[in-house]
């Protein structure tokens, strides 16, 4: 049973477009949702995160939209640039879901058409 699901294994958009990466989850106890960005040959790094009490979190060109009722969220990358090409992991955590653990999705590999 996959508790955090990313709908696309890969996504390609034109440079300058807004990319939308989707994620859904099953466990209602999840209350914190970080997105990690991973470049080839490197470890993942925290990009942006949202708590379930909010429906939107913005940080520069990156925005998370969160829908608690539907148990889904999305990462929007505005004005996509070549440096955004990476794999993006949606993750989830929450009290009572497993001490000090993050549950990761399988990742979406994002790339640009130059």
């Amino acid at each position: 049973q996959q508790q955090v699901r990313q709908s696309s294994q890969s996504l390609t958009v034109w440079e300058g477009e807004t990319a939308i990466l989707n994620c859904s989850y099953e466990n209602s106890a999840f209350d914190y949702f970080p997105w990690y960005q991973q470049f080839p040959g490197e470890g993942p790094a925290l990009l942006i995160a949202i708590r379930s009490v909010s429906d939107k979190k913005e940080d520069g060109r990156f925005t998370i939209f969160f829908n608690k009722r539907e148990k889904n969220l999305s990462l929007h990358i505005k004005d996509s640039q070549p440096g955004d090409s990476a794999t993006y992991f949606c993750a989830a955590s929450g009290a009572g879901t497993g001490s000090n653990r993050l549950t990761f999705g399988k990742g979406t590999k994002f790339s640009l058409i130059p």
Partner: protein
Amino acid sequence: DMKVTQMPRYLIKRMGENVLLECGQDMSHETMYWYRQDPGLGLQLIYISYDVDSNSEGDIPKGYRVSRKKREHFSLILDSAKTNQTSVYFCASTTGVNYAEQFFGPGTRLTVL
């Protein structure tokens, strides 16, 4: 500068050999993790360590063991490595404040022939 280091970065071993992967962090983080990453499978949790000599199995602990004798060091050991343990292994650490914010090392690419 907050940093997680991993050694070695690349390793080739034969089936049945023992493997030692090492991880260090300079942030005095209590909690550390070992994950493996395989194409299309994301990050799978092998072990968690809450502090020195306080370790807990993750989701896929079979075939692995860990050692943490100092807060800043966390080792992953494969006794008699198997070919299906070929993978990229990541170590991560976190403070006790927000364990969802994890700091990852650069990874070790292990090939078992």
